[in-house]
């Protein structure tokens, strides 16, 4: 799995951060979509193959590469649908989504459910 704050840890928040810290990398974008066969969130690799794992996603560093990937993805009707660009931050051990929605989308629904075995 990619880096992410463990929801089950007692103190998930980092110590008071300095907003101007140079350690905080700038966000970049990756392309994501929904797989037609099963609705699963998939992420586009650099070799234009779709992967279920966020860590495999190819970062798109600029406007040109982002729009190019998006246009290409919009032409694929049978395999995926609703492609869009998603903001991520590169950490030392992988990519991390910025929004809560994308974290849940990558991780799956509530960890409580997983704990009580609803997830197979």
């Amino acid at each position: 799995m990619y880096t992410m704050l463990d929801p089950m840890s007692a103190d998930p928040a980092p110590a008071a951060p300095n907003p101007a810290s140079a350690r905080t990398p700038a966000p970049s974008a990756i392309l994501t979509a929904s797989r037609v066969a099963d609705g699963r969130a998939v992420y586009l690799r650099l070799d234009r193959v779709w992967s279920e794992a966020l860590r495999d996603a190819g970062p798109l560093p600029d406007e040109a590469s982002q729009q190019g990937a998006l246009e290409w993805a919009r032409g694929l009707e049978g395999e995926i649908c609703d492609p869009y660009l998603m903001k991520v931050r590169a950490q030392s051990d992988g990519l991390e989504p910025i929004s809560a929605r994308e974290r849940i989308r990558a991780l799956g629904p509530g960890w409580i459910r997983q704990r009580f075995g609803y997830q197979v």
Partner: protein
Amino acid sequence: MFRYEPRDEQLLRERASQFRDQIQRRLSGELTEAAFKPLRLQNGLYMQLHAYMLRLALPYGQLRSEQLRALASVSRRYDRGYAHITTRQNVQLNWIRLEEVPDLLEELAAVHLHAIQTSGNCVRSVTTDALAGVAPDELEDPRPYCELLRQWSTLHPEFAFLPRKFKIAVIGASEDRAAIAAHDIGLRLREREDGEIGFEVWVGGGQGRNPVLAKRLREWLPKAELLSYTEAILRVYNLHGRRDNKHKARIKVLVGALGLERFKARVEQEWERVRAGGLSLREEDLEAMRRHFAPPAYASPPIDSRELRAARLSKDRGFARWADANALPHRMPGYRAVVVALKSPARPPGDLTADQLDAIADLADEYSFGEARTTHRQNLVLPDVESWRLPELFARLEALELASPSHARITDIISCPGLDYCNLASARSIALAEAIQTRFAEPERVEALGELHLNISGCVNACGHHHVGTLGILGIDKQGTEGYQLMLGGSIDPEPRLGKVLGRALDLEGLVDAIDRVMAHYLQVRRSPKERFIDVYLRVGPEPFKEVVYADHPPPRDRDRQLPAPIGRGAPTAGG
């Protein structure tokens, strides 16, 4: 309950076959997503965050035990072994593969279950009171009329591409247990001065971004004209509802724009034309339909409930507490309608496992003539249980973890799936529900707090009905972090009333604290245990509650916007 004839079954098979063809064309790329989407929505298939979600119709909440078993079976075979009950009495599966949908639907068609029109811009599943046919205060059983409306609306060729979704609810009592005040069309059975029973017709209710309570369109409509009048309303809506803006497309906007009188004039004009046609119901049609809902063979006289009295007086208050909350009055002496609570700290509200579905099927067969109902508060009901058997039923439910004494209490939480599942959501609702359940885990406290409806919506679309909760919570996205707005004082009955926001949004932990404080204050200021929270709120207003919630909260710190906010902060501990 209504029994399908071969022609009804045929329709389900043909529909499943039609959808199979459409899915084939989608998988081959012949149908684009844009063309496919409205078609799959009319078959209840949503694209959500993680997978397709299939919403199955349980018309007016009725279920036979064989259908419960079929749901268990498909949830095991095609899903992940659990199902979710919705606020419109339907059931949802969350992990569906597109190509398996036709087989799934075929399997369900064999027991008369389907997903027809549970989404899309068409007439949705008709809902009613879960106690229909057994409530002691009911004027007349609304279910025959629900079934007539179901047939009229199913695959209605003219109204499959409406400006927006359309929801109808029917109630047979004066207490609005079906929330008709929040529906596009609400129908209430009522008695005229001369004693004849007909329908009071309400129109234009709806929650969502701009909640509106329904207005009374017609004081009394003869039963025979139920379908013709509804058709007239739909036709006026189809022709004149707005199509330029999705958020202004419900019938409530049309009624508001025209004004009730002008809207009514158009409906009545169209109705004059329609009622001359084939939609008027004859007395024999009504009688035939009522026969489908004839009461079961109740035991009479009811058996003496010595065991019941003993159980109630026992030192272990568990049974008494459960019976007081969940065993509801029934029109037949010696019977109760039992709420099977799908609420606990260990589960999302309204969820149940395949094993529990199977077990409830057995309980329905053994205790309730093979019948169960879903409720709009996301629970199940066994409608016809003999009182003397309550202690043994309680024991069985307890063993299944379905005996939370929560009905109409603070732990009877309504919650939409929220950000954990839903594409539209702004915040998680399930996590909040579970945190509240854990905070209010003490049964004595829950019992002391009395009657409360706590409703959570994960976004402004209000699928959790937060506008009409005694405590309503709206999840919002506050610049990338989850925030929760608390509103107080909403109700459906006796007066439909929209809740008012108490103050600024709080984070998850803060909101659970806020509810805790509100409840503590309520207990402090109430004049007696008989004064419910809503009564106190109406007496003292929001200010005292606002004070206790926000008084010593410091203003929000400047957060570091560059670091993502953690999910799961303040998460409940295991075991509740």
